[in-house]
C-alpha cells in the first residue's frame, strides 16, 4: 500500500509538472511543413512552447475521447469541418473560442464557439477543356453531376473520404436525404472508374484522359502548378481547368481546416492565443502561400497561383452552416454506401 501511494505521488508530480508549464498541446492532423513553421513563429513571439502529437484524425480523436477529462490536448487541429463537428457531437469540445479577435476575423458560417476555421478550401469540378464544351459546363451544379450526360466521364474519391462526406452532408442539408440518395446513385453510375487515389489523382486522371471531369479540392491544382510535385505534374495540371459549381444559386461548397478547443484543456488561454495568432494576416499569408488554401480572413489575398489559375471571383456558399457537415455525416455515409459508392 505504501508503495502504491509513493507511486501515485510520483505520478501526480509528473502530471502537475506537465500541466503548469507555459505551453500548448496540439493534437494535429494537418501535417504541412508550413504549419510547423507557424508554430515556431508563435513560440518565438510569445514564449509559449507548442507540443505536437501528429497523427491521423481518427486515432487522435479516439485518444482525446479515451483520455477524457484528463486529456493533455488543448487544441485539435484538422482539415474538414465535418471532423470538428463530429467531435463536438461527442461532447469532447468546450466553448471559449469566442474572443472579439476571433469573431471579428471569421464569418459566423465558419465557426462555432468550440471550433473555428483557420483556412478555407472549396471542393470544385476540374474539367478537360479539350473534351468538355462550355455549353456542357454552363450552369453546372453539384446536383447536376448526377446527370446521365456525364456517364462514364466522372472521377471522384472514395466515399470514406471526409471531403466527400462533408460535400454530401451539405447536399443533404440543402436538398434532403431522399433526394441526395437518388443523386448518389446517379453519381455512381456516371463514374469512369471505381474510386481510387487522392484528390490529386482525380485531377491527373482528367489530364491523362481517363475521365472528363473530376471533383477535388482547390489547393491541389495550385500545388501541382507550383512545381512542388515535379515538372510532369506541373505540365499535367495545365491540361485541366477549374470550374466553380452552383454559381447561380447558393454558391460553391466551402470547407475549412479547423482548430477545436478540447474539453478540459490544461492550457486553454494559450490555446486561444494560438488560434488568434493563426488568424493574423501574417499567419494567413503564410497558409495561403504554402498550402494554397484560401485565407480565412478578409484583406489577405490567396496565392497568385490560385488567383491566376482558379480565379477569385466566385460565389462561396455562405448559407450552409459548416456545423451541418458533422451533423449530417452519418446520413451522408449511409447514402453513399447504399448507392454502392466504393
Amino acid at each position: 500500500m505504501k508503495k502504491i501511494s509513493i507511486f501515485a505521488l510520483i505520478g501526480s508530480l509528473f502530471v502537475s509538472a506537465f500541466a503548469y508549464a507555459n505551453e500548448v498541446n496540439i493534437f494535429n492532423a494537418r501535417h504541412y511543413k508550413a504549419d510547423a513553421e507557424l508554430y515556431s513563429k508563435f513560440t518565438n513571439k510569445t514564449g509559449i512552447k507548442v507540443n505536437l502529437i501528429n497523427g491521423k484524425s481518427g486515432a487522435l480523436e479516439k485518444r482525446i475521447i479515451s483520455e477524457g477529462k484528463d486529456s493533455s490536448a488543448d487544441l485539435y487541429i484538422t482539415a474538414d469541418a465535418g471532423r470538428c463537428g463530429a467531435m463536438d457531437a461527442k461532447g469532447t469540445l468546450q466553448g471559449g473560442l469566442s474572443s472579439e479577435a476571433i469573431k471579428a476575423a471569421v464569418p459566423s458560417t465558419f465557426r462555432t464557439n468550440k471550433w473555428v476555421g483557420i483556412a478555407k478550401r472549396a471542393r470544385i469540378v476540374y474539367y478537360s477543356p479539350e473534351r468538355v464544351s462550355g455549353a456542357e459546363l454552363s450552369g453546372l451544379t453539384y446536383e447536376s453531376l448526377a446527370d446521365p450526360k456525364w456517364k462514364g466521364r466522372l472521377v471522384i474519391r472514395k466515399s470514406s473520404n471526409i471531403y466527400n462526406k462533408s460535400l454530401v452532408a451539405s447536399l443533404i442539408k440543402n436538398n434532403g436525404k431522399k433526394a441526395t440518395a437518388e443523386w448518389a446513385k446517379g453519381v455512381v453510375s456516371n463514374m469512369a472508374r471505381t474510386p481510387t487515389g487522392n484528390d490529386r489523382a482525380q485531377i491527373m486522371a482528367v489530364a491523362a484522359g481517363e475521365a472528363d471531369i473530376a471533383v477535388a479540392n482547390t489547393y491541389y491544382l495550385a500545388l501541382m502548378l507550383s512545381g512542388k510535385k515535379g515538372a510532369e505534374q506541373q505540365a499535367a495540371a495545365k491540361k485541366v481547368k477549374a470550374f466553380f459549381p452552383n454559381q447561380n444559386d447558393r454558391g460553391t461548397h466551402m470547407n475549412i481546416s479547423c482548430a477545436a478547443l478540447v474539453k478540459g484543456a490544461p492550457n486553454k488561454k494559450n490555446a486561444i492565443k494560438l488560434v488568434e495568432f493563426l488568424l493574423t494576416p501574417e499567419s494567413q499569408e503564410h497558409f495561403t502561400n504554402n498550402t494554397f488554401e484560401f485565407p480565412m480572413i478578409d484583406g489577405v489575398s490567396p496565392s497568385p497561383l490560385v488567383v491566376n489559375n482558379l480565379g477569385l471571383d466566385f460565389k462561396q456558399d455562405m448559407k450552409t452552416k459548416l456545423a451541418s457537415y458533422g451533423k449530417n455525416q452519418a446520413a451522408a455515409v449511409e447514402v453513399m454506401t447504399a448507392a454502392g459508392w466504393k
Partner: protein
Amino acid sequence: MFRFFNLWFISSLLVSIFVIIPIFTVFTSFFENTSDYYELLKNTFLIEYITNSLILLIFVLIITFLIGTGTAYVVSFYTFPFCNFFKWAIILSFAVPPYIYAYSLTAFFENYGTAFTILKNLFGDGDYNKNIPKFDGMLGAILSISFSLFAYVYILTRASFLYQSQNLIELGKNLGFSKFRSFYKIILPSARPAIVAGLSLVAMETLAEFGAVDFFSINTLTTGIYNSWIAFDDLAFANRISFFLLLFIFALFLLENLSRRNAKYHLNVRSGFKRKEKIKLSRNKSYLAFTFCFLVFFLSFLFPLTQMLYWTIKFPENLFDLNIFILLKNTLYLVSLSSFVLILFSLLSNYGNRVSKSKTLNFMSTLSISGYAIPGVILAIAFITFIAWFDESIVKLLGFTSIKKIFIGSILGLVLVYFVRFYSLAFNGIKSGYEKINISVDESAYLLGYSKRKTFMNIHVPFLRNSLLFIVILISLEIIRELPITLILRPFNFETFATTAYISASEDLLEAAAVPALFLILIASSFILVTSKYILREINE
C-alpha cells in the same frame, strides 16, 4: 527455493495477464455505448471485409509461396552466377515494409509518375499514361504485402531444404524423375512443415496489415475494426468483426502448430543425410536461375529503394527539413528499450518453464504469445480503452490521481504494447534456443554445486547468446517498421522514421515521405547486412 520458483511464476503470470487484457477488452463492450447507425448496411460491410481479407490473404499466400519457395529452391540446390550473393540479398526485402512498397508502387505507376518520366525521357513527349498499368487498390496491396513478406517463406524453406541436402535430388534421379518432378514430388512435400510455418507467419502479418491496406483504402477485417471503432464508435460491430478476424487467426494458429509437430519429426531424420556439393547448372539454366533471383531481388528491394532515392534527389528540400539524428535517436531508443524488456521477461519466463515444469505456467506462456496474432492497431486502441476504463472505475474510485498520462502517450505505454505484440518473437526464439541445451547440462551444473541463479547466469545465458542476438535483430526490424502502435501511442513531439513517412504520405506528400522511408530502408538493411550470415545460420542449426 520456494520463493525462487514464485518469482518465475509471478512474472509469467503478470506477462500473461498483461497480454490477455487487450483481447479481453476487444471482446467486452461494456466500456462504451454502441451506436445504431447503418444497422441495415452492416451485413453488407461485414461481407465486404471478409471477402477482401480472403482475397488479400489467398493471393499474398500464393505469391509468397511461389517466390519464397522458388528462390529457396534455386539458391539451396544449385550454383549459378551470384548465387552466394542472392542467398542473403533476398532477405533484404524485409527492410521494406509494405506501406513503403505501396508508396513506391504508386509513385512509379501513377499518372505522370516515374514510369511516365522515364518513357518521356526515352521517347519524347507522348500520351503514355494510358499504357502504363496501374497498381493500386487491391492489386497494389497484394503486391506490396507479398514482396515485403515473402522472405519469411524463403528463410524457413531454405533452412528446411538444407537439411534435405542433395540426397533428395539424387533420390529423384534414381527414380528417373525430371528436375521439376523431383522438386514437385519429393523436395516440396518434405519441406512442407517449414513452408506452412513461413506461410502462416505471412498470413498473420497480412491479416494484421494496416499501413499499405489503409493507403490503398481497402476495407479488410483489420481496417474494418479500426474504422467501426474509431470513426463510428461502434464497439459492438467492431467486436463482431474481431470475432471473424480471430477465427481466421485461430485457424492459422492451428495450422502452424500442426506443421511444427511435423517439423520435429523431420528434424530427427536429418542426421542420416550427408551434405553434398550443390549442382552446377548448365549455362542456359543458370541464366534462368540468375534472372529469377535478380528479378525477385530487384522487385522486392532495389525497386522501392531506387524510387525513394530518386525522390529524395528530385525533391532535395525534404532532406533538409528533417532532423534525421533525432529520428534515428528515437528509433534506436525504442528498439533498445523494447528489446531489453522483451528479452528479460522471455528469459525469465522460459527459465521458469524449464525449472518448474509446471503445466499452469506452460499454459500461461502459450496464452501470452498470442499477442503476435492481434493487429497492432487493435492492440493500441484496446490498450487506451482499457487504461481509460481502469483509471475511471478503479484508480479514481480509490482516490488516487489519474494514471492515464503515465500510460497513454508515454514511452512506457508504447513499450508495454510493443511487448504484447512482439512477446511471442522473443519467447519462441529463446524457447528454441533452450531446446538445444540438453536438460542434463543443468543437472551437471547442480551436481557441481551451482545454484539455479548461477546456472542461469553462467551457463544458460552464454549458451543462448547467439539466439539472443538473433532475437534482438528480429525485434529491431519489427519495431523499426512498426506503424500503428507507434502512431497511436507515442508522446508529444516524438517521431520515428516510420511515423514521419506515414504522416507525410497520408497528407499526399509522398515525396516528403521518401526521405524517412529511405532512411528506414537503409537502417533496416544495415541491421540485416550485419547479421545476415547469422540469420541464415541460426535457422539452419
